[in-house]
């Protein structure tokens, strides 16, 4: 049973690829962000009065969560929870992005450690001011014109006084405050310590500018209770150790009505280590750690929402645009069993498959399955159901020789699975599929071919990851090949993408592991329970890599342990063509 594929209507057209607009969320236009946002239970749970570290890999959705928490964004959402939070005004989140160029520009290793910290505090406070003014203006938009003028004047006057910048203001409004603070920032020379003429509130403590105006805002807006200001610090991965120290001490000090939420990559920073006499925040006491996890149904909803918003312009308004309808469906469930039958024969029965599985398992296991009294129901549970996904992958790989096209990495379920709950990765895969849809019919075999090509590019691009690219590439080759051997060589058995690393791996510098995890090449099982990376941690190779190495996309309860490879030479070093500056090409 096949469903008409929406993608086929794009064939032969010359459209711009809507999925190529894969800017990061922080650079996505605000209206687009609002349109595509699908709030999850995790999102609503962030509205609390706790310091929190939100951990997720790149592209996993941390930024959009933080951005959408802001009052200016929340008030445009049509969800009951959003309306409640906006009306109650108990929480005012501020989006504070630690963009890489910003962090680098306020970090000068030539200055003393103390001065570097002071610079970071100063710059962060200036950034918090920007966000605060932005949000205050958004809040004031909901007041009548007269009320707005009055409140803005009060706010601007009192805030300027509290921040000791009143004498620098030409007029009394929020825009002028932003202008003055921006000027104070731009006047500082990054190669020098912060000038002593900068008001102390900007340089003493991070969020200091906010703490001193909490009551002012409460009074001016005539709120029912003093709100909690949630300073959402995004892109903490770019922060240096001394910056993390500042944030950690801030969380330890636990000031009323101002909390920090920090978005970070797994295993990049520790916010709770004791450091030369100064005490830092304690995990579980001064802050909580939240792993960014997306439920399957939420990811389904998100991917459908992204498809609809990005593809709507190519179809009529009443078209039901979902991922399934775009890619088409086969069989009853449109899952790997249907695609297997599509490739090996639709008349294949479950008995046929089970018989084939039985032939491939170990002789001891076969004997067990044939013991008297052993029912097919038990065999089904303990053997066939468990091993079927692995059997399918083995058979598919055998069928796939060279450039032959097969129907395997196709369909909505597969695309979502390979994306592994990473919206950015999903968009990239969809970008590839869209390009193919413009050229030819997006049949399952064409989808599969496109995904295989994408996986190959992704694997190749691993070499280019910052600092550790070459090491990560080499190590993942070692791991991938071991896992592949485990799947395809010998008897059919439970196996998948999960593995452990032998202790010898951890005797060398393991910085590469954190980067591989940050960039979703590797995953850590049960991340919330893992404090540090070691030989007892269960890792999983990404499903994109599983495409490349023909691995079943599943966990294995008996993960293999992979030894460290002694061969560290790159098997795939990319090469640069000769740069013939000013020289004639000898071949011409």
């Amino acid at each position, binding site marked *: 049973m096949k469903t008409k594929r929406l993608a086929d209507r794009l064939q032969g057209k010359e459209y711009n690829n809507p999925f190529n607009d894969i800017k990061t969320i922080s650079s996505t236009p605000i209206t687009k962000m609002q349109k595509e946002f699908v709030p999850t239970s995790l999102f609503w749970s962030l509205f609390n009065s706790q310091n929190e570290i939100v951990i997720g890999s790149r592209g996993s959705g941390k930024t959009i969560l933080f951005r959408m928490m802001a009052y200016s964004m929340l008030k445009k959402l049509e969800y009951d929870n959003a309306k409640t939070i906006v009306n109650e005004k108990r929480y005012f989140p501020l989006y504070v992005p630690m963009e890489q160029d910003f962090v680098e520009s306020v970090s000068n290793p030539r200055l003393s450690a103390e001065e570097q910290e002071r610079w970071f505090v100063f710059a962060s406070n200036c950034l918090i001011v920007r966000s605060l003014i932005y949000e205050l203006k958004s809040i004031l938009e909901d007041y009548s014109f007269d009320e707005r003028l009055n409140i803005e004047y009060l706010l601007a006057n009192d805030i300027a006084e509290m921040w000791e910048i009143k004498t620098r203001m030409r007029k009394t409004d929020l825009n002028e405050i932003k202008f003055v603070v921006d000027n104070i920032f731009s006047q500082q020379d990054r190669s020098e310590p912060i000038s002593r003429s900068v008001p102390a509130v900007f340089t003493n403590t991070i969020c200091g500018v906010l703490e001193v105006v909490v009551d002012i805002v409460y009074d001016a807006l005539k709120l029912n209770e003093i709100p909690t200001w949630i300073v959402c610090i995004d892109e903490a991965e770019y922060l240096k150790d001394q910056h993390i120290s500042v944030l950690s001490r801030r969380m330890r000090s636990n000031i009323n009505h101002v909390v920090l939420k920090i978005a970070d990559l797994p295993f990049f920073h520790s916010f709770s280590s004791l450091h030369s006499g100064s005490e830092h925040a304690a995990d579980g006491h001064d802050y909580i750690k939240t792993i960014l996890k997306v439920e399957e149904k939420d990811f389904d909803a998100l991917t459908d929402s992204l498809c609809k918003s990005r593809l709507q312009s190519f179809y009529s308004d009443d078209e039901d645009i979902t991922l399934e309808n775009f890619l088409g469906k086969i069989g009853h469930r449109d899952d790997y069993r249907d695609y297997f039958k599509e490739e090996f024969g639709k008349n294949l029965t479950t008995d046929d498959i089970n018989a084939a599985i039985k032939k491939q398992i170990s002789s001891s296991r076969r004997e067990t399955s044939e013991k008297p009294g052993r029912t097919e129901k038990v065999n089904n549970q303990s053997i066939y159901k468990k091993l079927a996904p692995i059997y399918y992958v083995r058979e598919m790989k055998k069928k796939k020789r060279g450039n032959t096209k097969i129907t395997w990495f196709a369909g909505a379920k597969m695309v979502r699975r390979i994306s592994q709950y990473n919206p950015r990765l999903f968009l990239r895969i969809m970008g590839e599929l869209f390009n193919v849809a413009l050229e030819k019919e997006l049949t399952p075999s064409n989808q599969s071919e496109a995904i295989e090509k994408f996986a190959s590019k992704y694997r190749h691009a691993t070499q280019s990851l*910052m600092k550790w690219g070459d090491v990560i590439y080499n190590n993942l080759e070692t791991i991938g090949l071991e896992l592949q051997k485990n799947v395809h060589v010998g008897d059919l058995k439970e196996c998948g993408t999960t593995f452990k690393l032998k202790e010898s791996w951890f005797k060398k510098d393991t910085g590469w592991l954190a980067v591989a995890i940050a960039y979703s090449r590797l995953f850590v099982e049960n991340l919330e329970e893992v404090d540090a990376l070691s030989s007892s941690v269960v890792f999983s190779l990404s499903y994109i890599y599983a495409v490349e190495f023909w691995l079943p996309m599943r966990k294995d309860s008996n993960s293999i342990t992979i030894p460290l490879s002694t061969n560290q030479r790159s098997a795939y070093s990319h090469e640069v063509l000769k740069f013939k*500056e000013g*020289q004639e090409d000898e071949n011409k």
Partner: protein
Amino acid sequence: MRINDFHNETYHELSENDYLICTIGYEERSAYLLEKNINTRNSENTLVVIFDDFEYDSWFNNTFDKLNELEIKNVECAYDQSEKYIKTVIRCINDCEQGVEIYIDYSSIPRTWYCGLMLEINRSNIINDIPVHFLYTAGNYPETYSACGIGSLSCFVGKMLPNLEPNKLHIIALGYDVERTQSLINLIEPNTLLACYAYTKLGSKEQIEKVNKDILDGVSAYVPLHLNDFRGMMDRLNELIIEQTRYGQVVIIPDGPKPLIFAMSMISIIHANTNREIICLHVSRNSHMVDDHKVRVKASELENDIYCVKYQRSEESNLGQLKN
């Protein structure tokens, strides 16, 4: 510092009056200009900086003997000792007599050295308006060579606060190492991306565009620049920055051949001194590369493959300095 302080030049053999500062060790190309001008070198007009990890190789033996014979001064410097290099060169500039001109061979030194030097000249009150010439010898690379990857990004000049509404333009430079450029793009995650690249002849322009096709397909615009025309590169970059900073922030990431890196970095210094929101980030090499990525680059040895630019403080720059 102003654009008018930079002037295109044609390379000429150095005279005894010309003070040459060269750096030996990273690749064979590093000794080319020194060897080419060895007949006019002596202990008073030459300073040789030697990388501390330079393992004296056969290609340098003859020159090394000659340097010893001429008693030419040498200073050892590690790759990450840019401050030492900068202080050494500035001392040379300040100690120079009237009529002497400084020639710096930057063919084989890290950007933190030659760009850092200019940053320091801009920052400090070196009133001495001795002309400083920067010389770059194009390289003759092996047919294929392993790429060097990206370590990290650091701020060279400028600073800015992030805007909450996206309006940032990244300007990156392209070369032949497409993987490196792609890696950089993945790292910076640009909002809007503009690419520039330097070419010498029409053939190389098409070659660069062909090699970088995928990247060029994804950028908002791209700007070809002529490597031979340093001043022209600066002028064009200047126009771009003035135009783009009207709408938002600009982040410049120099890469590709050194004269382009130099031009992009210098224009960044000039604009960082204004109110424009601009940052220049420098890419550092990847110290974790598994393979031995030392590339044996020889000098091109064609006359017109030596690129020269003269820096001399103009009157307006001096007036600006005095006002400050």
